[in-house]
Each structure stands twice: as structure tokens, then as C-alpha cells.
């Protein structure tokens, strides 16, 4: 019953956001600052995540495939396809659930408990349009961009790890990566990152927007935003895999 109520509140918030998304002039300034916070400021951690994901994947795949008859290029194929189809989107989303989701929930929660949201409303601002829409939009726009960055750095990291540890030469790695490269997998990764971006930012906005109970409430809503964001990412990953593949 409680979960259904939560879902209803969440859907209502999203509906309001969708309806007020036409008021571009209200959130234009906020949108760009959010885009920078979600996208530009996350580039570093996403690159780092990508490089280490790829590197670890290469080393462990090479370790597991230490058998005769399996060409070295298989490692390249496994690493690049895993990164494109799954890891670039999911791992960077999990990282961003901590970074972006927590920040959004904390920001909105603090504004809510310190009654800044009510102040906005009383000044005649549409608080959903002013606070929620730019954050969700920036998630929708920037997660795919970050997916590209994570993919490139992930494959690059895998390649570098292969070269540096001597597990697989660059040429073999790229032959495998190219041989099994399918444009559909990239598209699938894009769809995933798009969905994950929406889920993480909207859940964080919802948790922050309806925070209550002072500092403790803000902390609670932040935790819930992060945990729920991660859970929804994994759930959506499963659903997308069953639906689209």
C-alpha cells in the first residue's frame, strides 16, 4: 500500500514535470548549470571508471581464457562487447547514482526542509519546472554522452591493460573487437544509459522533493535516492535485456 502510494506520488511529480517542461524560460539557466554538474563535472570519474573497468576485464578475461584453441582476439571481442553492451552504461550509472543522485536528493531535500521550495511557490515560481525539470533533463541528455566517454575509455583501458601486461597484443585485441562489433549493441547501450539517466535523476528528485524531517530526513532521502537509484538501474537493465535482446 505504501509502495503504491509512493509510486502514485512519483508519477504525479513526473506528470507535473512533463507538463511544465514547456516552460523553457523558467529553467533555462538552471538547465545549463545542471548539465555542467551532471556531465562536465563527471567526466573525470567516468574516465577513471571506464579505464579500470576495461583493464580489469581484459586481465581477468585473459586469465580465464588461458586455454589452447581460443584465439587471443577473443579477449578483445569479449572486452569491447561487454563494455559497449553492459558495463559502460551500468557501472557508470551506478557511480553516477552515488555522485549525481545523492547531490540532487540532498540539494532538493535541503531546499524542501528549509522551506525554500515553499518560498519559490509563494513567489509564483513553478517549483517543479524550476528544480525538477532541469535535473531530469540533464540526466537524459548527459548520461548518453557519459556512456560514450565510458565506452571509449573502457575499451582503451582494456587495450592498454592487454598491452602492458602482455596478455593480448593490440592488433589481436582490435581484430576481435572489430570482428564482433555490432552497431545494435551501441544503440542498446545508448538506450540503457538514457533510461538509467532518467531513473537516477527522477528518483533523486522525487526523494529530495518530498523530503521531510530536518537534517535527518535529508540524510534519509539521500540514502534512499542512492540505493533506489542503483536498484532501479539494475532492474531496468534486466528488463531492457529481456525486452530488447
Amino acid at each position, binding site marked *: 500500500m505504501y509502495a503504491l502510494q509512493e509510486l502514485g506520488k512519483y508519477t504525479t511529480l513526473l506528470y507535473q514535470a512533463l507538463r511544465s517542461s514547456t516552460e523553457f524560460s523558467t529553467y533555462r539557466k538552471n538547465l*545549463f*548549470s545542471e*548539465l*555542467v554538474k551532471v*556531465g*562536465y563535472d563527471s*567526466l573525470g570519474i567516468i574516465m577513471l571508471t571506464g579505464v579500470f573497468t576495461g583493464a580489469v576485464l581484459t586481465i581477468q578475461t585473459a586469465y580465464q581464457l588461458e586455454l589452447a*584453441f*581460443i*584465439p587471443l*582476439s577473443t579477449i578483445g571481442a569479449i572486452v*569491447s562487447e561487454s563494455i559497449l553492451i553492459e558495463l559502460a552504461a551500468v557501472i557508470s550509472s551506478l557511480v553516477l547514482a552515488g555522485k549525481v543522485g545523492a547531490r540532487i536528493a540532498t540539494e532538493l531535500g535541503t531546499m524542501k526542509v528549509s522551506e525554500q521550495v515553499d518560498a519559490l511557490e509563494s513567489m509564483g515560481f513553478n517549483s517543479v519546472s524550476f528544480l525538477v525539470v532541469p535535473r531530469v533533463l540533464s540526466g537524459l*541528455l*548527459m548520461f548518453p*554522452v557519459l556512456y*560514450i*566517454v565510458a*565506452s*571509449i575509455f573502457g*575499451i582503451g583501458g582494456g587495450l592498454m591493460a592487454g598491452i602492458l601486461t602482455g596478455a593480448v597484443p593490440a592488433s589481436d585485441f582490435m*581484430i576481435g*573487437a*572489430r*570482428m*564482433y*562489433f*555490432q*552497431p545494435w549493441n*551501441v544503440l542498446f547501450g545508448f538506450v540503457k544509459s538514457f533510461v538509467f539517466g532518467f531513473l537516477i535523476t527522477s528518483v533523486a528528485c522525487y526523494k529530495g522533493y518530498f523530503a521531510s524531517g530536518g537534517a535527518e530526513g535529508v540524510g534519509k532521502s539521500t540514502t534512499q535516492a542512492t540505493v533506489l537509484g542503483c536498484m532501479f538501474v539494475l532492474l531496468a537493465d534486466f528488463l531492457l535485456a529481456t525486452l530488447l535482446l
Partner: protein
Amino acid sequence: MSNELKVGLTVLLAIAAAYIGFRYMSDMPIFRQTHEVVTEFDRVDGLGVGNVVYMNGVKIGSVINIELTRESRVRVVLSIELDVDIPVDSHARLTSIGLLDGKAIVIERGVSDQYVKFGGTIEGTYVDTMMEALADRGQELGDDISESFTELNQFLLKLNKTLNEENRLSIGQSIHNIESTTNAVSQVLTSRQKELEDAISSANRILAQLDTMVDDSRPQADTLMANLKESSKDLKKISKELDQSVDQLNQILVKINNGNGTIGQLLNDPSLYQNADSISVELHKLLKGINENPGRYLRHMTLIELF
């Protein structure tokens, strides 16, 4: 830097990186143009866009499009590097490059001096991979293998039967005997190790001495050989001359046999002998006459007169 600029920069760079990365991963050249060559196969199992095109083992391009034609063949468009010219009578083979999978197109160079133009077509054939060939003959192979195993089983059963308790015992004894023999040999070897070593070392010394001797007398042997060679050459010459002489002698003998020439006459004509015979008869008579009546012949021949 304003927020708008940062966002714009991030998005632009990401899109550019995605474009380049996508082209790179699909094995399409990133900026350079290529030319396209079309080929047709009956089937293209396992071939995908981005698979590599080889010529003489060198990568020269990749597959950029695969589609079915109306004649239910498969039309494959290859993107080939600009600096590679493909003769019009070249042949494309769709083959697998690894044991398990991984398809590639191998272009075998033709000999024509005319080259395929942009979008031109070359012939293609599909080559069965090892796995497919195996799959086709799998049943047969399996039967063969199971037959072999049955025979092996029977053989083992027979062997088992042959090796009954008694035989096993005797085999065990044989092995035991061999073991004791080996032990004895080993003991002998151990006890006489010193002598054996001495023998081996002296044999070594002898061999070394022989070696030096051979080395020392090598020049002499060489000259000897050279002399022998010359002598044999001379011998050859002599035998040739002898041959000729025998030939001539033969001819002479033939002539003699035929009665030609003096000797021939001598040998073959009996008249000389008859003359001689009659002469000797006459002489005999004469001597007889002289003997009987010497005065008749020596009438005037006194000793004094004689001197």
C-alpha cells in the same frame, strides 16, 4: 568558461568521439575515402559488416554491406583501400581465418592489367570451413569411431582371456628373471667400473693416436692416390693400344687364313712343301750315291788338290 560553453564542448567532443569510434570499430576508414567493390556469394554464413578483406594475407579493407539479391544469392559490398588495385579477373573467397570461427574475405589477385572500377563486381565463392566439413561428415566419423572402439574392446577381451592366471604367473616370473638378470648385470658393471673406465679411456687414446697417424700420413696418401690415378690413366691408354694391336693382328690372321700374302701362301699352298720334299728325296739319293761310291764324286778331289 560559461556553463553553456562547457556543455557544448562536452557534447561536441562526445559526438565526435562516438563518430570516430564507431567508424573505427566498424573498420571503416575514419576520414579517408575508399573505393567499393561488389562480390556475390551463394551464402555468407557468419560474415558480418566490419569483417576484414585480405589480399595475400594483408588487410586491404572490410565488408560494409551485405544483402540478399533477387536470385537468392548474397551481394557483399567491400570497401577497399584506395591504393590497392584489384584486377578484373580477381576472385573473392569467403573463408574462415580461425579454427572456431571468424570469417574473412580473401581476394586472390587475377592477372589482368585492367582494374576493377568503383562499384565493380568480382566473382566470389564460399569455402566450407573445417567445422562445417566436420559437421557434414560427423555421422560417418562417429560410426567409424564407434566401430573402432568395438574392435578395441573385443581385442582387450581376448587379451584378457589369453592372460589367464597361469600365463600371468609365467609373465610375472619372466619379469622377475629379467629383473634379476638386470641386477646381476648392474652388479658386474658396478664392480668392474674401474676397468671399464680404463678400457674406454685407453680406447680413446688409441683412437686419438690413430687420428694423428691418419693426419700425419694424409699428404703421402694423397700423392699415392694421385700416382695411382696417373697410372690408371696410362693403363687405360695401353689397353687401348693393345686393343688396336689385337685388331690388326686379327686382320692379319684373317688374311693368312684366306691364303693371301707370302705367309698365307706358305701356310696354305702345298707346292713348296712338295718341292722341298722332292728336293730332300733327291738329296737323299745323292748322299746315298756319294756314300756308296765316293770316288765317283770325289775323283778329282784329293786332299792336296783340295788345299
